[in-house]
């Protein structure tokens, strides 16, 4: 029965897709058979591409046949060449997919180094190589850092801020160096410890830098010269939101994990979970009204407060789970010796929980970095924009002529999150999937 229903549903869905494609996507009005002006068009290019792929498959087949024959001959066994062939085709599939996934990334990174780049350019490179001429492979005759220079134009750094920046960079280098050593040498206990300390130092100096920068230091003409200010704003907003998340959830998680005697603990937990069903931005009109009444529109405080409701449940949940995985015997012993609950919490549990706090902070930081709805609503002045809202001004404004600058800004704006994500990959992967299961 279930199978029949499944087939029926699939068939219906496939027919719907077919109907949509035939009548709405490829009808005369939507899909005009007309080559875009100035672009390279190869009739039946897909057939050549397919032939090329088939050729590769044939090569893999040939290789696996020959290799297996050779090995069989040498070792005197009879093995099938098919597993080898299958593995080869799998690799081919994955590489094609990687090419497709990285295609946009490569295009943008290339555009950011192209000083002439103007998205709406009809000029076609004439190199004789098809893919270069079509700009499918980026054509960079004279790469330069001009676009990046436009982003930092007119930025005045005070000497002590320069020192902070240097400190952060050195700490980052140190972390990277230790990471490399970890791969090369035997694991030492000092490595993890120092990596943590250096990371902390870096976070501190970046935060101090973000706090000490002021809009007056960005003197360049044009909105793009404010880009670093936007980055600083984003760091400030995300950092404060992350800190607030840790502060609010630490005590709540402790109470939920350890105060089992508290009547009403269960309804309270239910309340926390039910509230998190509502993404904060759904109440955007009310939040706008509230912030306009509190005169907090266009301020970071207002935005962080608007985020604060949505950051509590997840962190509380995670921290509660973490504490429940720790045996309470140590705390009980301390209580017997006359320690108060608060002392137990601050002296015993807080030091133990540092990795968990880093985890909550990072998830919140990255989530806030990419948040757009409330940021777009609350931050209305050029000087308070964050990266996402600021980039939006490129796509709606003078996008045509500033494609290169936009690309450079995208690359620079993505780097912090990219580093964080790959640096703490385990955290993110476990965090989001576990969170999804629990939420």
């Amino acid at each position, binding site marked *: 029965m279930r199978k029949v229903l499944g087939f029926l549903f699939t068939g219906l869905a496939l027919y719907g897709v077919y109907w949509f494609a035939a009548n709405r996507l490829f009808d005369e009005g939507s899909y005009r058979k007309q080559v875009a002006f100035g672009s390279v068009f190869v009739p039946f290019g*897909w057939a050549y591409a397919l032939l090329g792929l088939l050729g590769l498959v044939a090569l893999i087949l040939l290789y696996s046949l020959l290799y297996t024959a050779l090995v069989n001959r040498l070792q005197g066994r009879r093995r099938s060449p098919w597993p080898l062939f299958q593995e080869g085709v799998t690799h081919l599939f994955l590489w094609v997919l990687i090419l497709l996934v990285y295609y946009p990334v490569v295009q943008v990174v290339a555009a950011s180094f192209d000083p002439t780049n103007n998205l709406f350019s009809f000029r076609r490179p004439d190199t004789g190589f098809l893919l270069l001429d079509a700009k499918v492979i980026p054509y960079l005759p004279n790469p330069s850092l001009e676009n990046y220079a436009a982003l930092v134009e007119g930025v005045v750094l005070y000497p002590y801020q320069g020192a902070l920046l240097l400190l952060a960079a050195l700490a980052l280098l140190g972390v990277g160096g230790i990471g490399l050593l970890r791969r090369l040498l035997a694991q030492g206990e000092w490595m993890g410890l120092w990596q943590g300390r250096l990371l902390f130092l870096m976070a501190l100096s970046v935060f101090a830098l973000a706090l000490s920068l002021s809009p007056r230091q960005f003197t360049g003409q044009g909105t793009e010269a404010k880009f670093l200010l936007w980055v600083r704003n984003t760091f400030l907003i995300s950092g404060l939101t992350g800190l607030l998340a840790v502060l609010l959830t630490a005590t709540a998680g402790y109470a939920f994990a350890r105060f089992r005697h508290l009547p009403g603990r269960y309804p309270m937990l239910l309340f926390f979970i039910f509230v998190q069903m509502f993404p904060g931005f759904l109440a955007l009109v009310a939040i706008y009204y509230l912030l306009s009444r509190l005169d907090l529109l266009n301020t970071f405080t207002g935005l962080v407060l608007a985020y604060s409701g949505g950051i509590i449940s997840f962190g509380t949940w995670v921290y509660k789970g973490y504490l429940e995985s720790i045996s309470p015997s140590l705390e009980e012993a301390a209580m017997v010796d006359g320690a108060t609950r608060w002392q137990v919490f601050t002296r015993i549990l807080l030091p133990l929980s540092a990795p968990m706090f880093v985890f909550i902070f990072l998830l919140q930081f990255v989530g806030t970095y990419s948040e757009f709805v409330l940021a777009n609503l609350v931050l209305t002045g050029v000087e308070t924009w964050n990266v996402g809202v600021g980039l939006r001004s490129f796509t709606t404004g003078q996008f045509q002529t500033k494609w290169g600058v936009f690309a450079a800004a995208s690359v620079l704006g993505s780097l912090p999150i990219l580093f964080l994500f790959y640096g703490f990959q385990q955290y993110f992967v476990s965090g989001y*999937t576990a969170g999804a299961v629990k939420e």
Partner: protein
Amino acid sequence: MKHPPGLKGFLLALALLLGLLLLATGVGLLGYLALEAYLAPPGWTILVLALLVLVPGAVALGRLFPWLTDWYYLLPALAFLLVFTLYPIGLTVYLAFTDYSGRKNGFPDRSTETRVVAQEGARLVLEADAKEALRCDPCQGEQVEAYAEGHRARAKILEVEGPSLVLDRDLPFRAEYVAKVNTFGFVGLKNFAFILSQANQALLPVFTWNVVFALSTVLLNALLGLVLGLILHNKALKLRNFYRTALIVSWALPGVITVQVWVALLNYNFGAINRLLGVLGIYPIPWLNDPDWAKVAVLLVNLWLGFPYMMTATLGALSTIPDELYEAAKVDGATPWQTLWGITLPLLEKPMLPILLSSFAFNFNNFYLIYLLTGGGPAEEGRLATAQATDILISWAYKTAFSAEGQSAYGLGAAISLIIFALTVLISLVNFRFTGALREVR
């Protein structure tokens, strides 16, 4: 002293805490109103005043009822939840029944600002005819704000005669200007009636596309994620860690930036995607200019953004399947195909279902993708200006409330949000039902 047990104890504690919070809020509000005439303080003074009451109040209450201090660990989180989540929800419900809008926003209308020439008790004499200057007729009952440097106060008009007006209370300062307040009021079900009367132009098509979008994007992402997860789970595959790390890249980049980059890549004449298609012998596709292709573009971009998550989730779910099952199947002579359909897929269902459901809930309100990629457009005939081809409910609400096309109809936007609330609750309840998250809490 021990905590009073049972339901009574819980309710007592709750009543004490909520009473304290209410008291603090009340003092904050009243203090703000009282200060207004003398200092013209910024609105966040309310928060500061409330905090000034809350902290000593909590300490005093803790002295009186020592057992209550256990609850203080929950108090900060609880206070923030109440003020910045629960209160906005209630406020949304209220605003959905008002005509709150950019024109009627509850603030003084500076264009009606008129100089006060003379003041005597509650009677103000303006420099021009009051009815014309304040643009009201009849003026009785209208709210005005009188202000001077560092002072301001609101009052109702009782009577108007030529250039003079009588307010319902004395002002404690010498007013320099008067302006009418653009009040908004209760309009009953008017916003909902408007939504229903225009249902064919907005609600129905937007809702249909919203559901279709969320469903098909989850299915597409899950399908690609499943295939990749199955491939990469194979321990014999060389370089599998490299592949996993490399393919995760679109998840590691901030979506708010990459979506905006896609706008340029999908450009009809110059975009990198159409250039690639041209080399493949496919005519350029109007990704963002055609109402139907825009839907495809949204789905494809979200596939690029979302498949790494599904791949990772699949890998996580696959690692929970014990190896013995496969060994047993191998002993029994099952083909790989049979193993896949008989063991792997059925066992994947349980861990994957909650992930699919929460992914559905997320995409149902995936505002930033729609708003940044297509802005809800392109325009489609016979639709409201705020509800175009790829608009989903949340972007429709946003555009209604905060964009030029919507003419800042905040109340209407709140009404749409209320509909989304109802749907979100429905989805979450289904989610809870399937995942049993509530049972797990204890």
